[in-house]
């Protein structure tokens, strides 16, 4: 009999949560106190604070992954549409999301937008909210609109629980999420410092746990992991340090993350489950809560393809900053096949990276990609090239024929 270490125990727990497509944790949370409600949301960003303030559990729904056989969902989507909407529908149609009392669709792309309408038709008994966010970052313009959007959500949820949500409740939830973001940020900082101690496959699972656990519990779990993993002796490898980007919506299979790591890359930053660190600064928890959330969104939030960059100069700044502050040596663009936002954004980001002489490589995946060999090979070649051309400047513009920076190569899965 083997005894698991504390780290193993935490990671195993996260793994169980991750693999549980029946959302047992959510069901248990609801069953613990009668009348509890849970609201699902799709990836990128929704203000979970408002859901939490209603006393509801916000549940991140990130598609079906590679363990779900998609049968019914495929009948709703043509072959040239990404996988996450079809596997999410599959989850809904097979009753796996019955534990949710509502579903929120953040404003990311046309697929999610239309999925919100599909949900209205297919699940008429559930609360459905398409959550629009402003692409105008002026307080009294986009900010006003956004405060109204949040207010509408607040009222809807207040009605659902039979009692309006107060400012105090909202501020208390803002504090809870500030703390959660602080913990995630500690985790990310730790990984960037000692990536061998906090492999990305584990960090990913920890974040996934945050999709189904109450934030207070998740925060605790992260801190326990950090304390535990730091005590664990782990081998340090001579890996290339990379930022993974483009995976903000449909998630890569866990095997893909592991493959990238095994091929010789330490992922030191990424854009998985951005909702956990969308707001970059602590949100003041003693003011007008919706206004503070709005300001945080407008002026201090992460950049993704789902957001408009008001000037050309802003394009890629966030990514370059990720590279520099995390001490990365290159960028791996990993985007879901048929993902318009990620794939349209990519050439601009690549151009910015090239100007900063930061090497990159690019490939596509689907949540059910099974064949990892081509990705492992490409990531491996990329890692080797970084190590070989350790002078970053020369790696960005390798000599003719050098198998280094894949300027626009796509390994289609």
């Amino acid at each position: 009999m083997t005894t698991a270490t504390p780290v193993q125990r935490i990671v195993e727990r996260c793994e169980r949560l991750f693999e549980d497509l029946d959302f047992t944790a959510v069901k248990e949370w609801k069953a613990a106190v009668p009348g509890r409600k849970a609201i699902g949301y799709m990836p990128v960003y929704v203000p979970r604070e408002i859901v939490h303030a209603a006393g509801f559990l916000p549940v991140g729904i990130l598609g079906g992954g590679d363990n779900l056989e998609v049968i019914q969902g495929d009948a709703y989507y043509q072959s040239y549409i990404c996988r996450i909407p079809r596997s999410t529908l599959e989850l809904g149609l097979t009753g796996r999301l019955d534990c949710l009392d509502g579903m929120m669709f953040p404003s990311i792309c046309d697929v999610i937008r239309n999925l919100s309408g599909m949900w209205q038709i297919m699940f008429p008994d559930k609360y459905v909210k398409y959550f629009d966010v402003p692409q105008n970052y002026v307080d009294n313009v986009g900010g006003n609109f956004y405060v109204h959007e949040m207010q509408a959500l607040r009222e809807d949820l207040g009605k659902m629980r039979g009692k309006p949500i107060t400012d105090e409740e909202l501020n208390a939830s803002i504090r809870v999420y500030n703390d959660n973001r602080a913990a995630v940020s500690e985790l990310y900082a730790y990984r960037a410092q000692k990536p061998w101690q906090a492999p990305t496959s584990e960090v990913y699972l920890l974040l996934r746990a945050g999709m189904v656990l109450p934030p207070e519990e998740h925060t605790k779990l992260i801190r326990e992991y950090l304390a535990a993993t730091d005590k664990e002796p782990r081998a340090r490898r001579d890996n290339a340090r990379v930022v993974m980007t483009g995976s903000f919506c449909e998630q890569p299979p866990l095997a893909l993350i592991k493959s990238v790591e095994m091929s010789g890359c330490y992922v030191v930053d990424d854009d998985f489950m951005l909702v956990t660190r969308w707001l970059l600064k602590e949100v003041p928890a003693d003011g007008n809560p919706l206004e503070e959330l709005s300001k945080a969104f407008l002026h201090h939030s992460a950049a993704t393809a789902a957001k408009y960059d008001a000037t050309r100069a802003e394009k890629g700044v966030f990514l370059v900053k990720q590279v520099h502050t995390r001490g990365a040596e290159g960028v791996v663009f990993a985007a879901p096949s048929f993902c318009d936002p990620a794939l349209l954004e990519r050439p601009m980001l690549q151009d910015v990276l090239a100007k900063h002489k930061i090497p990159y490589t690019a490939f596509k995946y689907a949540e059910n990609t099974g064949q990892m060999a081509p990705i492992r090979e490409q990531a491996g070649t990329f890692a080797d090239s970084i190590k070989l051309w350790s002078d970053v400047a020369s790696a960005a513009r390798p000599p003719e024929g050098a198998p280094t920076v894949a300027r626009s190569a796509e390994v289609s899965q």
Partner: protein
Amino acid sequence: MNAVVPMPESRKAKPVAIKDDAMNLQKELINRNYRELAEARQAGRKVSATFVPGNLNELLMCFDFARSLPETNALQNGMRKKSGKFIMDAERDGHSEDVCTYVKADLGMMMGGEIGPTGDPMPRPDVLLLSYTGCFTFMKWFELIRHKYDIPTLMLHVPYQSQGKIDPNMRQYVVKQLKETIIPGLEKISGVKFDIDRLRQYMKESAKAEEDLVSVLQSAKKRPSPIDGYFGAVYYIGPIFTAFRGTPEATHYYSTLRAEIEQRIREGKGPVTPEGDMGEEKYRLIVEGPPNWTSFRDFWKMFYDEGAVVVSSTYSKVGGLYDFGFRHDPDNPLESLADYCLGCYTNLNLPSRIDMICKYIEEYEADGLLINSVKSCNSFSAGQLLILREVEKRTGKPAAFIETDLVDPRYFSAANVKNRLESYFQMVKQKRTTGIGANVKPVFPIAQV
């Protein structure tokens, strides 16, 4: 996405004089816009680029901009068989094979020396007015152009009608952006001061043309339909959806067109096709989704050869939904512009789109629904299979699905499309004779068929 396409010449039947008027007028308008763009620099005019759905043509005219519409350029290049090369050039330049081909056709055209579809040079715009209506790709498209050419961009964010209605917060947000971002931005770039009375004047003109357009589109309720509400309608919507709405020329075009169509009704004629007047009207269809441009003529022929006329389409509403009552309102200019942007077809949620199609089937007494799902456009395509099921369920009329692309010739398989269409027409015929489906009286008792 949308259309300004020169009406093809009639090859067989000689068109009557009045029809010639509308056709020639339309062609002249389209060519004139390309000429204006080509000559803008010499004429000292500033150039704007903006998208078709929710375009603010009246507003842009207030600042004397020459007006380019990149989707229109892409589709024109598609019709002229130039888009295939442009798309491949853009892909070689690092653009993914998976993304909207309008974007790649446009970027490829720029790489190829910025020569427009008519062979005239296309000036680099002075401003990209990013009216972010109905499609997320728009945002990336103009960011891509801005990134390449460093052209100033003005963003007008139009919220999505996710609840099937425009709530006051949405309208206020758009109006505020117009007041605080768009109008000051356009003033600065053009050097022209904003004059709201000028805007009102253009909007008055728009409303007149809109009235006539609706009358033309709704003429398809007649039997036989005097127009094709899809293949023909893309010509009719050209001027109003693009650089001409608000001009007296557009008003003139639509009143001429209306008179021509009324004449056809009096004569009991069906639609005009590229090969002359259409023969007997055998099937009346509603079409959802944009057309394919690279094989437009072949595609259309597959319909009229079989006697199928499209009596209404959702695509012909992509640049504005006038048939449910919206008109540009000179008395409330900015609010009206906001409602116009908010009300574009692809800015409607799926339930509203389904309602609209069901309504068309009923009002135009259509035999069924055909969906042309284009690979490029998630805004249209993601969700269409549910539209198909729901419409079948609610109307009892048969629906069919074909797949093509807008301007990528690699995604038009003529044989496949033809096969699908033929079996669809069979299905419609069968359903008619057997009478299966709600609201349809059996013509023959089923046992005898």
